[in-house]
């Protein structure tokens, strides 16, 4: 049996409807077991014929009945739903465009203005905080001298309980005029702090203040370098710090 003959004579429908002779039916089964196209057609025809029988049973094929009400019954709610959805969309858009958005914009502008005012106040407070100097009594001072021998005790700094700043006074060897310096203050555990931009004062020394929070009790090494060539150390000092 050829595929062309099967197609031409519509065997798929005849088979599905049980109208093929037994030997033709068997031959067609042997064919569609090896033919994807014919098997797909048989499956589709099975569904179509079953659907038509079902429609006949439900009276949908009766000529006096208009099946369109079935569709209308389905279409009308869909149409009403679509119209309702469009109306709701239009109302929603109008509300957003003419009421909600202008209100939101006004609120945004107010919030921005408030934010700018707050920023200005904060800037003013910061400026005042940095410019207001608070006098402090009994500022501890340590004088660091570089010409001590290793056997002499280190220069000592005692920090009081109410002290916030300490003053380092550093004697330095003669240097060319205009030289700038920097010092590193290194604790025994290797932590340290650097102070830059130092210049000799009228007494031929360097003076720097340091927050005492940076100075825990212990031994420190202070190293002096020229600012332009920090690799070349000029002098080294030893300092001990104690706290009351």
């Amino acid at each position, binding site marked *: 049996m050829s595929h062309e003959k099967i197609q031409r004579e519509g065997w798929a429908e005849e088979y599905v409807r049980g109208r093929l002779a037994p030997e033709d039916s068997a031959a067609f089964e*042997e064919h*569609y077991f090896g033919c994807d196209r014919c098997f797909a057609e048989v*499956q589709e025809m099975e569904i179509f014929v079953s*659907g038509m029988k079902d429609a*006949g049973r439900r009276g*949908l*094929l009766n*000529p006096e009945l208009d099946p369109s009400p079935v569709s209308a019954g389905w279409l009308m709610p869909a149409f009403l739903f679509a119209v309702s959805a469009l109306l709701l969309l239009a109302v929603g858009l109008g509300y957003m465009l003419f009421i909600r958005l202008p209100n939101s914009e006004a609120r945004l502008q107010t919030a921005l203005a408030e934010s700018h005012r707050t920023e200005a106040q904060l800037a003013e407070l910061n400026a005042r905080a940095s410019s207001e100097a608070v006098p402090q009594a009994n500022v501890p001072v340590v004088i660091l001298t570089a010409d001590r021998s290793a056997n002499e005790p280190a220069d000592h700094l005692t920090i009081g309980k109410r002290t916030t700043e300490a003053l380092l006074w550093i004697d330095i060897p003669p240097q060319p005029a205009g030289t700038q310096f920097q010092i590193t203050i290194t604790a025994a555990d290797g932590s340290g702090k650097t102070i830059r931009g130092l210049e000799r004062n009228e007494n031929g020394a360097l003076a720097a203040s340091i927050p005492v929070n940076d100075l825990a009790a212990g031994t420190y090494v202070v190293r002096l370098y020229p600012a332009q060539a920090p690799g070349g150390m000029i002098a080294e000092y030893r300092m001990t710090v104690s706290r009351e």
Partner: protein
Amino acid sequence: MDGPVQATDAELVYGVQSGDESAGTDLFRKYSERVFYLALRELRSMADAEDVRAETFLRVLKAIHKRQIASPDALRLFILGIARNVILETLRSPLREARGEIPEVPAPEVAEIVDDDVRHSIQAAIGRLKPREREFLRLHYYEDLPKEEIARRLGVDEERVRLVKSRSLKSFREMYRRTRKIADTKRGGPSLKV
């Protein structure tokens, strides 16, 4: 783009005999829908058709392992033969007779395959027909009359009946494929109807 190349029956047989598990899977994939449809058509029961499918492939695989299949190229007819035997055994089984099912009656329709998608597509196809054309279809599919009788009753020639059938099938096919495509997309993959 072409799909994956399907193994020949001979390759499937040699694969199963050499212990290649994927060959057994491919063999099942290639023929299981056909066996299921054949059984469903004869037995009118999804559960029985499923049992026939399982029993058929069990026997087929055993036979291949025991090298009882005469020619690997004849695998298709071998499976069909076993399926027919299993269907006959099922039709004659005391269990089916006890359920009151009559084995002699062929199974022209299967109620389970007419789901909402089918009904919707059929109604859409019917909706495009004139009342007289619907009458053609009613006499043909529901009353099950031959084309000649329909032509005689309605006073039209057989070619006209054939054209109405062809147009209805085309409308149904378009609507049904569209509906199934949407349903498959929602489900995440295609599915077999029968």
